[in-house]
């Protein structure tokens, strides 16, 4: 329960901090930190337009997306504070729930019979397919390292090991951080701010969604963002600290992550679309190295 609360809490400022950081780096004042949420609220109040070719798939797509992300949020623990749903192998279900949402978003994009949405759907399906192994290998290696197979136990036991767990936590956080960029369509995979349909990945997929549907998708995206960043924060926060301290550190870490993304996005150009495949593959490669390190470690060489 606590886990869900802190996740929702950091959801409130996370997207705003990124936008603010980018604005500051480009020498502008930028909107307030809560502006993304104000925009979402405005969207939720708006009416919407539906394409005449669309069907029930389009009507349900955004809701399924949000519902699946919400349910996935129930799986994520906050440090040693357990998540609401936890069972051995729960990370498999976590990933596949996100997959369910993605599936519906993709088909609702294909529902409107437009070249743009088709393009977005195709790209999303392709990149998420490439990105998935990285997450599984990472969780597999953590399972191998800690000897447990659920999020809760993995993160609790990650801290009880020797200094090696810090190294592994760093690499895990690196992989998770990169995965976040892929999953939530940030630079260098995708440019969330662009107005150019032809170069977008996620945005072009939801081009025809308007009003509440778009709002739901944006909410889900923000939550998804925080889910991944919480997972990487979990690798670090010591369990011996007091709860208040943990939450404080967690929130600072989240804000730091957001600032980091903003900084990263300010000082580089995005990838060429064809480069994305290898970018994502190299994430998988790094988690593969991690698992090999752990294999060797487990065999006490």
């Amino acid at each position, binding site marked *: 329960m606590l886990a869900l609360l802190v996740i929702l809490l950091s959801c409130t400022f996370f997207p705003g901090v990124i936008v603010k950081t980018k604005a500051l780096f480009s020498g502008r004042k930028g909107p307030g930190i809560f502006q993304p949420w104000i925009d979402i609220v405005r969207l939720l109040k*708006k*009416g919407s337009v539906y*394409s005449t*070719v669309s*069907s029930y*798939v389009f009507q*349900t797509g955004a*809701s*399924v997306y949000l*519902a*699946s992300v*919400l*349910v996935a949020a*129930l799986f994520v623990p906050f440090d040693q504070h357990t998540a609401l*749903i*936890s*069972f*051995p*192998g729960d990370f*498999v*279900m976590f990933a*596949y*729930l996100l*997959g*369910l949402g*993605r*599936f519906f978003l*993709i*088909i609702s*994009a*294909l*529902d*409107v*019979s*437009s070249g743009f949405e*088709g393009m977005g*759907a*195709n*790209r999303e*399906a392709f990149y*998420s*397919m*490439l990105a*998935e*192994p990285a997450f*599984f290998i990472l*969780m*597999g290696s953590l*399972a*191998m390292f800690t*000897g*447990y*197979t659920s999020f809760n136990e993995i993160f609790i036991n990650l801290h009880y090991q020797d200094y090696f767990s810090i190294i592994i936590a760093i690499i895990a956080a690196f992989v998770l951080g990169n995965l976040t960029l892929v999953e939530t369509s940030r630079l260098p995979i995708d440019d969330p701010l662009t107005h150019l349909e032809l170069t977008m990945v996620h945005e072009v997929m939801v081009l*025809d969604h308007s009003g*509440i*549907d778009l709002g739901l998708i944006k909410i889900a995206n923000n939550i998804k963002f925080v889910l991944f960043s919480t997972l990487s924060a979990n690798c670090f926060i010591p369990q011996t600290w007091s709860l208040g301290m943990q939450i404080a550190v967690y929130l600072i870490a989240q804000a730091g992550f957001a600032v980091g993304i903003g900084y990263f996005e300010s000082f580089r150009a995005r990838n060429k679309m064809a480069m994305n495949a290898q970018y994502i593959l190299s994430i998988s490669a790094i988690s*593969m190295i991690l*698992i090999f390190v752990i*294999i060797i470690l*487990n065999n006490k060489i």
Partner: protein
Amino acid sequence: MSLLFNTSLLLSFALFFVPKRMKYLVTLLLQVLLIVSTGTWALDALMGSEVVIVPLGISTWSGEIIMTIDKLSAFFILLLDFVCFAGVLYAGGYLRTSIAKKRDVIISLHFFSLLWLNASMVLVTAMGDGLSFLLAWELMSLTSFILVIFEGQKETTLRTGINYLLQMHLGFALIMFGFLVVKDATGEMSFQALGPYFATHSNTIVFLIFFAGFGIKAGFIPLHTWLPKAHPAAPSHVSGIMSGVMIKMGIYGILRVTSFLSADQELIGSIVLSVGIVSGLVGVILAIMQHDLKRLLAYHSVENIGIIGIGIGMSILGMANQDPALAVLGMAGALLHCVNHALFKSLLFFTTGNIYHATGTVNMDELGGLVHHARATSLAFLVGAIAISGIPPFNGFISEFLIYNGIVVNFTHATFAMSLAGLASLVSLVLIGGLCVYCFTKAFGLTFLGSRRSFHPVTYHRIPWIMIFPLVLLGLAITLIGFFPRLIVEPLAGALTAFGNLEAQSPALLSTSSALQAIGLTNLVFVVAMVVVSSLRAWQQARVVRATGPTWGCGYSAGDFRHQYTPTSYASSLLEVVEPAVVYRKDYPSIAEADIFPEKRSFRTHTSDRVEQSVVITIIDLLIKYLPMAGRAQTGYIHHYLLYPVVFMIVIVLLTHFNYI
């Protein structure tokens, strides 16, 4: 009960004599009889603690034919009865127009074979004796052959059918050879004899012979080449049954042989695992490249067989490494995936039948926008698509979860080699899952959504309820397993008892059972979340302006269906990455540098199976090259032909004389 069974089979001959319009009803009736009898045995076997033995009352020269139904057989019998029943139900709608058009005898033969396919599959799972097993196996191949060539007036269908029959006989020969090797060593030709044989001889070679023989039926790469041809050629209900359960008979055979293994499991497990990984990955990659929906589904059968192979392979490796958790979970996952695949694959094939019925084509290049004309079918396809992609809340996820769980649990205490195997199967399972999403978003999106890819106005045939009802049946089963996965644990545990060295009630399965409960609960939570979100949305929608209009086309008002993604386009980004796995040819003269104003040209692509091209075709080419030499014997003179038997006889006599036979 055996009376019932025999009666239904005997009565099936009456099909040839009843009036045309009664044939379907009679078939359905006989099918019900068949299912009741076999189902009762299977339930007995699964619920009880003993193996059900049914003497059929038919004697051959090797003795009376006896059905021995243990829990593994019972598991498969229940599955195939269910799917066959759905298939026959579906055939009622699907064949309605054909029944009117086709000749009486063809219809009779078709229904007759349909019944006998069901019966022969039951027999296959129930025969312990080698010879009767082979007979049942042959019967299964023959009846399915007849079913495949239902549209035999087309030359390609006939060709495909013959190809199918040939390959099945290759498999048959391999299985028979396997049995003969065992018989040679133990004097007995039955599955039971494998136990003592494996205990004393090298396991690998005989296992591999059986694996190849059964693998042809199951469709493991590179033995899969008949599959993507036969499925599209057959009528949809037949493809559904064939892909759903008939290829599982291959898996059944492999499982049966596996259950007797006693040594070399490390090697055997790695072989099965690698074949499974290759089948899974290559199968799904090729599926993505297809334009024909049925071909796409056929390649997905290869992929799912690959997943089952991964489960079996990991399980065998688990047995080898004294890791009961992995062994149990892998095998349970594989078994459950057999069930799941049977359910969703037949569902998908039946929906394809509906699509064909409604539009007259299953080519995705020409489809689109069907959702507005076949809403129920589209829902069924959607359920099947989600299930086959292994995504919750449907059944596909459950079996994949079992395998995942086995792998990950194994990770926590794996040896170096096992970690490698686990890593390989983990990565390939994940990739298969992702590729499946890629493929089925494409299949569903391009077939049902958007608008029709046609310049001409098209008419749609209404889909009768009889073609929807079986889909509902299968969909319910899929949902049931997805939401209440614990229900399946007990039958699974039962079926696992066939593997003497698996502790079916092992802690692994029990703890997984609680995880399954949690999954079921999560699915329910998801439904609740979905209801909450959608009702909030509905509440909001009632209060704001909802406008409809054409899809945003940047203000251009003369856009047409060409603006939608096509199957080729959808597959092309993947194609670049997986190029080595596919033979890809593009019929397109690219526009040259100085071609400022390009001439008229066309664009067509062809993808084909790299394995088929490089392995199978090469072998066939060699045969084509060297077989004509044998053709020289065909001289055309009668007296030469008379000479051959004489030579043959002399050779036989000589061989027996020198004790070679």
